[in-house]
């Protein structure tokens, strides 16, 4: 029975008997399983429709994959099939919170391709419309940030002001959301009678509401704890990712196209560009809050100094002739017919032009082949790079940090997915 007593060498480590296995077992971490959850496509925190595939370890985000495309409508291809003017309603639906800025940005690019200088009054109206919609966009963003952190009151204050501005927008353009305002060469209708006074009153009320939101959120310890130091992106990374607008300025980069490359009449107004320092959610929130005050400041100046004059160029190859001319003269009828049926004959060429939209640089790369329709329209949506950096910002942080981060970068599904 000698064989039986012979100890045989261990072939595989046995944790129950091997001395060394005990030690390693004590040091081994508890085996956890990662959880993959889908936030969205329809989720309270995803503005619009975007799907976030989140891989969680406990409450920590290990991996996040934003998946876009749920709002894809074929914007660029659609534009190629219609006249330049008919593109306008499509641009409404890019950033549906600030439709006028898309309208005017597109028109500005087309005018640059034509080489057209629009009347001064039209430039003022474009500034007024843009700033009103900058306000509505920032209000939605700041209000939603409050809402999704659990504070319902700031959201409703924001909505009240936004509602006032929507009323003013409706009086100006005829629509609350999808404005399709402005035409190549100027503006399609003038400011309504007594509208400026109404806007002044709305802005007075709005200032109070912004102060209330400010009071409820800015120094609220819980809000500060939730936003300060979360969702941080450094200035270098932000530039590398292609950040523009408030998200970039919150990192401390003073870049605003309204100042850097003034268009329309922005150089005539006195306004400041708020710049943050830390690139976190709190700075992004503060930058937006201050930009709203500056927008109100610009609006008041613009409305006080707006000159009288024509609102659209007097060129029947670009602007529709006045109705008496259409009904009374053969030239009028012909111009009208050719404009409507063939579109504006934009000279062949290509151009890139950008304006400062509420979330950053809204760029347009358009190509014309000389016919009445665009050959190619590409939008550089400010929300796209902003969304692209979300994994970089949030991986390794907590699930709860995702919410304010996603709010303050303010990605808009419509323009990202076009």
């Amino acid at each position, binding site marked *: 029975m000698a064989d039986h007593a012979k100890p045989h060498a261990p072939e595989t480590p046995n944790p129950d008997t091997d001395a060394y296995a005990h030690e390693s077992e004590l040091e081994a971490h508890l085996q956890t399983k990662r959880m993959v959850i889908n936030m969205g496509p329809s989720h309270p925190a995803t503005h619009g429709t975007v799907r976030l595939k989140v891989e969680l370890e406990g*409450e920590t985000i290990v991996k996040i994959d934003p998946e876009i495309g749920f709002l894809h409508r074929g914007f660029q291809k659609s534009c190629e099939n219609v006249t330049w003017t008919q593109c306008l309603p499509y641009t409404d639906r890019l950033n549906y919170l600030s439709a006028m800025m898309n309208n005017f940005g597109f028109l500005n690019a087309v005018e640059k391709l034509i080489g057209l200088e629009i009347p001064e009054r039209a430039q003022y109206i474009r500034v007024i419309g843009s700033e009103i919609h900058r306000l509505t966009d920032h209000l939605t963003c700041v209000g939603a940030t409050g809402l999704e952190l659990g*504070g319902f009151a700031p959201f409703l204050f924001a909505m009240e002001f936004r509602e006032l501005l929507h009323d003013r927008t409706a009086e100006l353009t005829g629509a609350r959301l999808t404005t399709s305002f402005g035409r190549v060469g100027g503006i399609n209708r003038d400011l309504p009678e007594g509208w400026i006074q109404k806007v002044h009153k709305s802005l007075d009320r709005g200032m109070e509401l912004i102060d209330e939101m400010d009071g*409820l959120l800015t*120094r609220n310890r819980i809000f*500060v704890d*939730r936003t300060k130091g979360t969702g941080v992106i450094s200035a270098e990374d932000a530039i590398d990712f292609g950040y523009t607008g408030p998200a970039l300025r919150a990192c401390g980069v003073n870049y605003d196209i309204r100042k850097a490359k003034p268009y329309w009449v922005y150089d005539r107004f006195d306004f400041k560009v708020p*710049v943050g*320092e830390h690139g976190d959610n709190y700075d992004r929130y503060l930058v937006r809050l201050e930009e709203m005050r500056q927008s109100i400041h610009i609006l008041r100046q613009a409305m006080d100094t707006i000159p009288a004059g024509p609102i659209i160029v007097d060129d029947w190859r670009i602007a529709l002739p006045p109705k008496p001319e259409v009904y009374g003269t053969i030239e009028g009828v012909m111009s009208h017919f050719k404009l409507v049926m063939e579109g504006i004959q934009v000279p062949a060429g290509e151009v890139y032009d950008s304006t400062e939209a509420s979330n950053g640089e809204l760029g347009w790369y358009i190509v014309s082949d000389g016919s009445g329709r665009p050959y190619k329209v590409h939008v550089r949506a400010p929300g796209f790079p902003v969304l692209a950096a979300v994994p970089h910002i949030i991986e390794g942080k907590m699930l709860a940090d995702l*919410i304010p981060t996603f709010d303050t970068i303010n990605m808009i599904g419509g323009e990202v997915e076009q």
Partner: protein
Amino acid sequence: MSRVLTILTACVTIVVTIFGVAAAAYAVGGLVEEHGFAGASRLTNILFLILVFVMIIATLLTMAERKWSAYIQDRVGPNRARINLPGLKNRALGGLPHILTDVLKMLTKEDLIPGTANRFLFNLGPILAFAPVFALFAVVPAGPTVNVFGHQVDMVVATPDFGMLYVLAIASLAVYGTALAGWASNNKFALLGGVRATSQMISYEVALGLSLVGLFLAFSSVQLPTIVGELGSAVASGTGQAQYLWRTDGAFDLGLPAWGILLQPLGFLGFFAASFAETKRAPFDLPEGESEIIGYFVEYSGMKFGLFMISEFVEVVVLAGVTTALFLGGHHLPFGGEWLASQPLMQEQGWLYGAILGTVFWLKVVFLIWVQLLIRWTFPRFRYDQIQSLGWKILLPMGLVNVFVSGALVLWDPSLRALAIVGMLEIAFIMVLTMTTKEPAEGGAHGGAHGAHGHDDHGHGLPAGAHAAHGLPAHGAAPASTH
């Protein structure tokens, strides 16, 4: 103006209704003692306190919350539902018909159970969340013991020796409901919510119990009726919270009552914050955090969800009741209590006296409910780890220090006056701290807790550039707006 009138009318209606129901509770208690068996009034107390007072206040609270949040947020609130009866056809009735429609909606909705859910535990969840909350109120005295029709009638369901320990024990049972609901739904969001709820409730139970120890020491009892105390008379001074720390001489007693909030302000803050966390309402509503993980009850529909929702409101009422009994002197008036009790009319008509003091109790409860609504609608939500650090790093050490300081003071001066002086100094300190840090939004329960914790230096200055002066106000400083 009409809104102010509506609010005034509502207030008067509430007071009159509370008085009526309290009087009825005492009268019925006296009648059943007379015609039934001894102790039968405890059974009617179950009916009146838990089914009438708590349940109806909780039901009305669903509407009060919607209306009050509407007033906070500059809205009108629900006013569309109408009762199609002559005379009522075109009246909004303060939105009350919405309660009926809500209940009908809950009851008639499809009761959906996910195919992969554990049916037994899934059904058990709402029950376990709902039942303990009601049982909590059993030990809370909602009125004095008075003589009705020759029988002693009190306004409490049970007076066990272990008093508050019962409340703490039953309160911790509610965690099973949420944990099971989160787990049994077989939904990842629900699971996250259930885990959050469990960790939050368990960690806050420590602070909840600890914040009360100082009070137990001061009144040498864990029984709620003893803590609430008996009024003094010509021969004996009062006990519990009915005693005066300092008082004027004379028939009308005026003085500083030994209420828990004066003796134990830190205990009050800790208890209020911790019990707020137990109710899982904002700012502690992480388990349901509707914009993040929707909540542990995401898979529930119909009345099962309704049970979770109503249990939250019941918790609010019960929490307010317990806090009133512990810290706000229960059913006692702040002054004049002994004078009122010595009136001949009050001594003859016990039910009247009981109803008056019962009204006092319920008005205090309503006030605390209002405070809770105010906090709930003005604060954002904490983050998961922040809530833990608030519980473990702030509330727990604060409670421990409070226990030692209170114990020493009670030992040194059994008349509780030293404790009260220190307590009032604490209140003054917290108020000064809150004001000097220029963070006015930090009122309420945990504001003091944060204040006591001190403010770390927010290193968030802004670059001193051309725009800085006009741009963002530096954090923590006065707004430097120049436009």
